């Protein structure tokens, strides 16, 4: 249960993650070409197969066109005007947290993600990513005792090359789409998770992505593998400083679930959204996809999207294993001039597969919020079922909401159910709450939280409270 009272304390705060850490960074020159890719690969001391993977992706990307089908409008991105690698300068080899630049630790402290031994969160292991590199990962030894691997993807490339080579790009191939190809060519860091057979991960795993530099993009790559009968809950958080330029964030996340395993992936996305006039903010083009390879495997996405100037994101499930389950729970909130085009794809391939989609879009200010989703029943997906519910809430009269549900069924013996609704916070509802002594902004927050309840209930406890606060914060001054 989300405590609405939390809302009250923070409703007056501006974007509090907008600070910049003053730290010496190592940046490569702007632009993108084969030499840059070779340089990134060389900096990361990568094996040849990965460099080949990158170069192949780059070739494909060059032949591809930036997609324009989303209901988004933005100035063309100049891909040669971006820095593709930026890392805080620190010692070559860091053996313990004591050697991490205190400024970095301080940064994560300020973000509410303490990393040091004394202060670290007790129930969550954290991988902290700063611009292009992972700074630290907590609880590694404890996790290792259970055979769980949780580290930056760069480390995984060094220490678990076999797993990387086996799985990287198998869920989201480099040629999948324009932004996935770009990411495959230049990805810098991200998290790697491996849960061995039969293991229930003893704590939640979490990655925290921080963009600090204004002119470099962030291209993280996350790979999670859940072996047979294992399970893991993974959380992802993101923030960035306030710059008046747009920063590109193009991530790829791949999840693989084998027989009877389950992966729960939760995101609270709070990248800087730009100011009230729409100046600045992150361009967030993300490809997230999970493959339910095994029988009775389950992948559940839950996301709270509140930040970014542009959001283009469709966490999806490929349901291959028989009786596998895919879920997508989403709250997307846009305010001012933010634009979001987000949703999911549930591709039912195996028999008796099941998927659930619950999407809540909230548009305030002059923003534009679209749900776009595909439910597909393949020829072998007999006995499969989908349930989709897409609700939109409009706040004020300048915002817009769209729903684009695509349904393709090649299997007569399957069920697809779709419900959609649009509502507006009515003056009568507000007056009712106010006439009971509840202040205007709190009344709005209460109603928005109520609208999102079905999704918040899916989030891990701490995240739900966090999400609730975040929505209140984002809505400040958006009504009346």
């Amino acid at each position, binding site marked *: *249960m989300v405590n*609405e*009272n939390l809302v009250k304390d923070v409703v007056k705060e501006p974007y509090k993650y907008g600070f910049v850490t003053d730290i010496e960074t190592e940046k490569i020159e702007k632009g993108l070409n084969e030499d840059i890719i070779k340089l990134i690969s060389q900096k990361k001391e990568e094996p040849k197969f990965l460099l080949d993977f990158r170069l192949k992706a780059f070739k494909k990307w060059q032949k591809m066109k930036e997609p324009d089908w989303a209901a988004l409008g933005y100035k063309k991105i100049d891909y040669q005007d971006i820095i593709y690698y930026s890392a805080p300068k620190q010692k070559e080899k860091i053996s313990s947290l004591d050697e991490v630049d205190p400024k970095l630790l301080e940064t994560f402290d300020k973000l509410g993600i303490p990393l040091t031994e004394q202060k670290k969160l007790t129930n969550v292991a954290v991988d902290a990513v700063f611009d292009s590199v992972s700074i630290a990962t907590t609880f590694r030894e404890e996790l290792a005792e259970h055979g769980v691997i949780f580290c930056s993807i760069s480390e995984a490339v060094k220490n678990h090359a076999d797993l990387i080579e086996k799985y990287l790009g198998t869920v989201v191939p480099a040629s999948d789409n324009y932004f996935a190809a770009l990411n495959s060519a230049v990805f810098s860091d991200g998290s790697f998770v491996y849960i061995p057979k039969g293991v229930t991960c003893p704590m939640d795993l979490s990655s925290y992505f921080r963009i600090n530099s204004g002119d470099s993009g962030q291209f993280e790559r996350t790979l999670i593998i859940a072996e047979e009968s294992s399970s893991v809950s993974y959380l992802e958080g993101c923030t960035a400083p306030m710059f008046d330029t747009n920063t590109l964030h193009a991530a790829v996340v791949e999840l693989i679930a084998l027989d009877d395993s389950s992966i729960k992936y939760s995101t609270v996305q709070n990248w800087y959204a730009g100011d009230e006039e729409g100046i600045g903010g992150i361009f967030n083009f993300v490809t997230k996809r999970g493959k339910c390879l095994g029988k009775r495997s389950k992948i559940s996405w839950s996301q709270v999207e509140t930040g970014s100037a542009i959001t283009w994101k469709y966490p999806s499930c490929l349901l291959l294993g028989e009786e596998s389950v895919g879920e997508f729970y989403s709250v997307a909130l846009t305010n001012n001039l933010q634009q979001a085009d987000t949703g999911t794809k549930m591709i039912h391939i195996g028999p008796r597969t099941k998927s659930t989609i619950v999407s809540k879009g909230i548009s305030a200010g002059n923003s534009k919020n679209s749900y776009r989703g595909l439910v597909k029943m393949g020829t072998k997906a007999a006995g499969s079922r989908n349930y989709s519910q897409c609700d939109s809430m409009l706040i004020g009269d300048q915002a817009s909401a769209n729903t684009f549900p695509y349904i393709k069924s090649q299997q007569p013996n399957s069920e697809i159910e779709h419900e959609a609704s649009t509502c507006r916070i*009515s*003056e*009568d*509802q507000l*007056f*009712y*709450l*106010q*006439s*009971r*002594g*509840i*202040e*205007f902004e*709190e009344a709005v927050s*209460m*109603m928005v*939280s*109520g*609208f*999102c*309840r*079905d999704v918040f209930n899916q989030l891990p406890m701490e995240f739900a409270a966090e999400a609730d606060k975040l929505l209140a914060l984002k809505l400040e001054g958006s009504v009346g």
Partner: protein
Amino acid sequence: MQSKMKESDPILEVENLSASTDNLPILKGVSLTVYPGEIHAIMGRNGCGKSTLSKIIAGHPSYNITNGDIKFLGENINSLEPEERSQSGIFLGFQYPIEIPGVSNLEFLRVSTNARRKFLKKEELDTFDFEELVKEKLEIVKMDPAFLSRSVNQGFSGGEKKRNEILQMALLEPKIAILDETDSGLDIDALRIVASGIKKISNAQTAIILITHYQRLLDEIKPNYVHVMSDGQIIKTGESDLALELEEKGYEWTDNFVKET
């Protein structure tokens, strides 16, 4: 009658109040004074302005006061926000209580009660203490605790919504409660529960305005004064027998009245 000397100060004074919505005049000079311990009934045809009067006293943003004043405990409240009015002790029982999907009734009641308690400089209640309090108050309206875990008014029957309103009144302990057609849509048993609830909550320091069409509520809660409204004005004021006369003769009888000045 309204102007006779009373021992204490009035709770509510409505002075020559005119108001409009979308430039359409609804109230055309209403005056009404309510003292502690009094029960007033306002009757009149649909559209006469009685619901509007109650909403304006509660601060509904859709109406503009074009003339006159509303004073609560001697202070002009014309420009106060609805929540400030509620916190200071004005309660409006809605004719059609609003549904708020997803917001739990318990949490809503708690936030609301704490807003009032904060104003009264009483300690705010956490969930556990509040549950104790609310269970006690549920008795007054004979409501099942299961209502607390549902969304505010959502899927409630007409009678359940009205009882939820009286529950809120019991929790907020207002100085004045304006109950807009609280009796409509209630069967006899529910009406008795609601009426006895209202009586239990009120005392010599509080006042009630009942807006109603029917005598049956007034049989249960006997008013000190009955006002008849027509076309945005109070056209007649009398004692409780005026309601009986209205019941007998119908509103057509009142059409012949000239506004009493």
